[in-house]
């Protein structure tokens, strides 16, 4: 399988990427690591006329301590996240979760910005970003803007990014809430999560329980009201709309969410 015909262009700076995307119009796609986009292009689920390769924009590959927050460049790979000593110390949840994405080869190519912008509800890092109350920084022709993670994911593979706008950075406020956990339930090691759960402090997010990554608001409210982990976990499926597919029925996903939230809260409490 090879993708349908397209024109390949390479940008070496953010300015150049925005210019190339503006010239190409709405049928352009940014290519970072390509591990979400290229599989879709092979299946003709994405058929861009122009692909703007941003993979070599070195200014977008960094992990920095900015005092009040940790700043992560969009092109930082999952492998770099998982091996970062700064993240291991300040944001171990992100380092750990990035090390659970796909397999080593995928982690050598895939990027946090690509994963978040792609907004697959079954992907790990969008839910992590949501649980961390991160801020998404995007640059477009009219400048830079900050988007709270809670307003970023608008639908299946849809985000608040406008055409021609590029996700450049993800910021996470310090310190992260006490205790964390990342639970991922798969059939085979490299699969997408059938259901995943992210816990940081009192924040709980769900992977693959709807058309976007979701916050488990019922669980969070119960925890805030003093409920035990077990009691709170009983609210895990509230407000969700998981798919019924060949991997799992809706009822099974709801069951998994409750079980995994329970395990996640207990693990987070042990670490907190």
């Amino acid at each position, binding site marked *: 399988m090879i993708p349908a015909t*397209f024109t390949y262009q390479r940008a070496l700076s953010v300015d150049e990427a925005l210019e190339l995307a503006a010239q190409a119009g709405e049928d352009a796609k940014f290519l970072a690591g390509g591990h979400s986009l290229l599989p879709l292009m092979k299946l003709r689920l994405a058929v861009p006329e122009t692909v703007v390769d941003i993979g070599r924009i070195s200014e977008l590959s960094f992990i920095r301590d900015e005092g009040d927050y940790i700043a992560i460049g969009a092109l930082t790979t999952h492998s770099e996240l998982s091996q970062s000593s700064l993240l291991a110390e300040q944001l171990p949840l992100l380092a750990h979760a990035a090390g659970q994405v796909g397999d080593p080869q995928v982690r050598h190519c895939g990027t946090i910005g690509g994963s978040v912008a792609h907004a697959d509800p079954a992907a790990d890092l969008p839910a992590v970003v949501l649980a961390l109350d991160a801020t998404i920084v995007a640059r477009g022709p009219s400048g830079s803007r900050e988007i709270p993670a809670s307003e970023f994911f608008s639908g299946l593979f849809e985000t608040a990014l406008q055409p021609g706008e590029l996700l450049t950075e993800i910021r996470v406020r310090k310190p992260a809430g006490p205790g964390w956990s990342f639970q991922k339930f798969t059939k085979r090691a490299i699969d997408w999560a059938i259901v995943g759960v992210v816990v940081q402090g009192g924040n709980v997010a769900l992977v693959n329980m709807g058309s976007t990554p979701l916050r488990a608001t019922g669980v969070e409210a119960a925890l805030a009201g003093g409920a035990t982990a077990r009691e709170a976990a009983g609210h895990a499926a509230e407000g969700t709309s998981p798919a019924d597919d060949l991997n799992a029925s809706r009822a099974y996903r709801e069951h998994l969410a409750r079980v995994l939230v329970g395990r996640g809260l207990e693990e987070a409490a042990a670490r907190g």
Partner: protein
Amino acid sequence: MKVNVTVNGSQVEAEVPDRTLLVHFLREQANLTAANVGCDTSSCGACTVLLDGRSVKSCTLLAAQADGREVVTLEGLAGDDGELHGVQQAFRAEHGLQCGFCTPGMVMAAVSLLEENPDPSEAEVRTALEGNICRCTGYHNIVRAVLAAASERRPR
């Protein structure tokens, strides 16, 4: 577009369609057929090569993404005198292959692992090979081979 990749130390330059995948560039332009097209969906790992020293699945990269960069395939591991790389020797000694289809990818994934983690535990080897599928299910000997290669590399 014109793509120029350093493959196993030699420049390979070719005019190819923009949509050309790296694995096809390697097989059809560089005439190196160790990297296999297995699942074609970045699941099986049979197409694994090293890009700038790190394992990648060449069916999920455009040749254009490797333009100007360095690729090593299984053919590039042995020395000029034909002496096998330590990981290749260990696969032979431990019988880490059956039909052989997954072997080039397994070996390249193992080479990349040992660069990142020279002294892996058995569990770490198994985790590091998650992206490589052996349909003969010969995993035990493959894991033994990687552990043997790691042990052989350690100074005594």
